[in-house]
């Protein structure tokens, strides 16, 4: 039974994740009045990439291949610790939230390392941008996690993600949503569609990847998006108060709302100028810090 549940959860994460970018693209196409790519486009892309050869720069060491693989595994292991509504988490222990944060950081490290392996100045620039934004985004994420653990008096994700609704939940929702946009390189921080500008961040890092490593990068990115959407939904809504089926439905609806929100923001907002990005990220840090203070006030 437990093995079945384990496989079910894993399948849920791995198989459903590529659906989310498809939904975002569909929403964007719908707002723009186009038909847009099919919702399953990323699955087709992954299948195509998996059959392709890997082209490697003569400068690159094996880390060029290992990086995306490490990142993919790190994100997947982080996901195993994030509870999935009534299905629960595959792994749960005291302090697992810290490991989740570090695994996400490890994934970022692996991707930026692989990006710099190509020896291209362009990719090094993207890597520098990615990590400099991450400084602020991670601070916000840590503040959000602290808020949740102060609220629930626990450091395990399974019990942390069942808070009550309050002022801090609103602040936390706004802060975590901004972190989601920044961490997943969506508008207004980065434009996932551009491939020609000097301003792109994530796309520039994976520009020279090809074949199965690129598939791992793309799939890992979609899993990370799903992880943040699930985390945001469960951090804000009082998941513990619903029946199992209700919780599953609420989780699904919440993730869908988050994803459609990302799509709408992407079609209604332009990417911010570079100088403005730290301001927005600072705002998200402050939102999470204020949520933490409100939670503290409530706990004291």
């Amino acid at each position, binding site marked *: 039974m437990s093995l079945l549940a384990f496989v079910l959860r894993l399948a849920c994460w791995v198989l459903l994740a590529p659906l989310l970018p498809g939904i975002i693209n569909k929403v964007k196409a719908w707002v723009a009045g186009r038909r847009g790519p099919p919702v399953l486009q990323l699955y087709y892309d992954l299948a195509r990439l998996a059959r392709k050869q890997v082209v490697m720069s003569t400068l690159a060491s094996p880390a060029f291949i290992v990086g995306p693989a490490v990142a993919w595994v790190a994100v997947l292991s982080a996901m195993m610790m994030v509870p999935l509504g009534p299905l629960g988490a595959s792994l749960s222990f005291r302090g697992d939230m810290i490991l989740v944060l570090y695994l996400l950081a490890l994934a970022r490290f692996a991707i930026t390392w692989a990006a710099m392996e190509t020896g291209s100045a362009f990719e090094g620039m993207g890597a520098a941008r990615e990590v400099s934004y991450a400084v602020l985004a991670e601070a916000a994420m840590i503040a959000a996690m602290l808020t949740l653990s102060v609220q629930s008096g626990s450091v395990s994700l399974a019990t942390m993600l069942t808070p009550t609704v309050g*002022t801090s939940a609103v602040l936390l929702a706004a802060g975590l949503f901004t972190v989601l946009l920044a961490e997943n390189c969506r508008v207004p921080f980065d434009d996932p569609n551009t491939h020609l500008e000097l301003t792109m961040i994530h796309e520039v890092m994976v520009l020279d990847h090809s074949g199965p490593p690129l598939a791992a990068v793309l799939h890992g990115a979609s899993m990370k998006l799903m992880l943040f959407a699930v985390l945001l939904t469960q951090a804000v809504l009082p998941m513990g108060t619903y029946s199992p089926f209700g919780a599953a439905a609420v989780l699904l609806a919440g993730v869908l709302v988050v994803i459609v929100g990302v799509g709408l923001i992407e079609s209604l907002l332009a990417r911010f100028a570079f100088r*403005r990005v*730290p*301001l927005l990220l*600072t*705002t998200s840090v*402050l939102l999470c*810090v*204020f949520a933490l*203070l409100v939670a503290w006030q409530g706990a004291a």
Partner: protein
Amino acid sequence: MLDLNLLIGLAMGLNLVALGSSRLPSIIRATALQGVLLGVMPLLLEHDLDWRVAAVALATAIGKGVVIPGLLRRAMRAAHIEREIEPYIGFVPSLLLGALGTIAAVAVARQLPLLPEHARSLLVPGALASILTGFVLLIGRVKAISQVCGYLIFENGIYLFGLLLISSTPLLVEAGVLLDLTVGIFVIGIIVDRIQRAFDSLDTRKLTALRE
């Protein structure tokens, strides 16, 4: 009391919005919204609704939410300026200063010997935070219009403090302050226009240089 705290919390959030936005229209909008929130507050504080309280509340909301922002927008249009380019204190530092100020205001207000009925209220922290925000905007911005917005937020802080004494100060005083404020902004609107004509810019740094 909870509703009042929510409104004050929103007003404190608007302080940070005003500190973080570089476009003048959004600073003016944040200030206007804060004025409307402040106008509504006396209605929540007074349990038996008096027509005089209602009239002052309405006058505050209209004055701070419509008339003053309208005057500022007109001055802005006349001067052809849209945004703050190079503030003395950058946007991220001023945002951090504002956030620190807000946290410090909450911490300080806890230490103050307040009346028991004001102990759980955010009135005092909100007032202190708004005053600090007003100071940061007054000191840190270069354009005259954002300095005026800083002055308005500063005044909002004083108004919040005044709400503590709402049962003992006559509302006439508040109404008088509001009138003064409106006239003041009206005059500043004209001055902004004159500065623009004389110096071709609203940069207050240029006002220190003498010119024939």
